[in-house]
């Protein structure tokens, strides 16, 4: 029974992904992306990764997508009230055809790579088998072997925060630097 659920969720994920590309307004893309994330989260659950399913929802859907939403609202890009339309405009034109070809090629590469791996089909695990990413195993791994990358990632996050503040801060008058283009007349360039 759960295999059928997987294929349904797979389809949902793919449609969501397509939705992201084809949505007319960025708001539409955000929503379809949200759909993909939910589908993926359930797939993780089915595959036995409980922690990661939760993480997917909390971090991806909860944090990153909210951030996107926030930015779209801030720059009022998406037409608020409109329906969720799709438009195939981006797929027209020579450039799009080339992009399509590259995307198809990537898909093929992925498929061939997947076939080549020796991962034969296996029997279903017992329904109540413990989660693969059991917390204590994961914690031991994360803070044991991968403690260095863990520290590195935390530094990365710190750096990102600093960068974001500097980049997005609105320049108040009297401070030089940053927004030069705007204040002083037309830039000669």
């Amino acid at each position: 029974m759960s295999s059928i659920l997987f294929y349904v969720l797979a389809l949902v994920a793919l449609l969501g992904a397509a939705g992201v590309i084809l949505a007319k307004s960025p708001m539409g893309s955000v929503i379809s992306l949200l759909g993909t994330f939910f589908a993926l989260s359930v797939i993780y659950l089915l595959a036995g990764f409980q922690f990661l399913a939760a993480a997917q929802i909390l971090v991806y859907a909860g944090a990153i997508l909210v951030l996107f939403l926030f930015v779209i609202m801030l720059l009022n890009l998406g037409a608020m009230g409109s329906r969720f339309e799709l438009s195939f405009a981006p797929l027209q034109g020579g450039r799009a055809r080339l992009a399509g070809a590259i995307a198809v090629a990537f898909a093929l590469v992925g498929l061939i790579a997947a076939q080549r791996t020796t991962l034969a089909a296996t029997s279903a695990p017992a329904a109540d088998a413990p989660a693969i990413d059991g917390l204590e195993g994961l914690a031991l791994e994360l803070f044991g072997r991968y403690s260095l990358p863990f520290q590195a990632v935390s530094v990365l996050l710190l750096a990102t925060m600093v960068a974001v503040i500097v980049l997005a801060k609105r320049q108040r008058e009297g401070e030089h630097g940053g927004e030069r283009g705007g204040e002083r007349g037309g830039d000669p360039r």
Partner: protein
Amino acid sequence: MNVPTAHLLYLSAGLFALGVLGFMVRRNVIVVLMCVELMLNAANLAFLAASRQHALEGKPALQGPVFAIFVITVAAAEAAVGLALIIALYRLKQSAETDAAAEMKG
């Protein structure tokens, strides 16, 4: 679910291909960023599929999730910086179209 790992990987390939397509086709920078997120998710899925396979064969399978976690954090950082850039770009050019910023040419 006794779905063969290969199918999981097909899904991941499909998602990745769509991500790439969006990345190259869309003109709105925010959607491009989203496609990048999509690609990263596809990668995550592939990690976990492999980890699931190792777990089913009884081998230690914790590397997958750990990498997935790292991918998530990196994706978060990348999205944050990307969006900050978009805000700065928007303030400069009043538009989020990729073609707006075309001065940096050879």
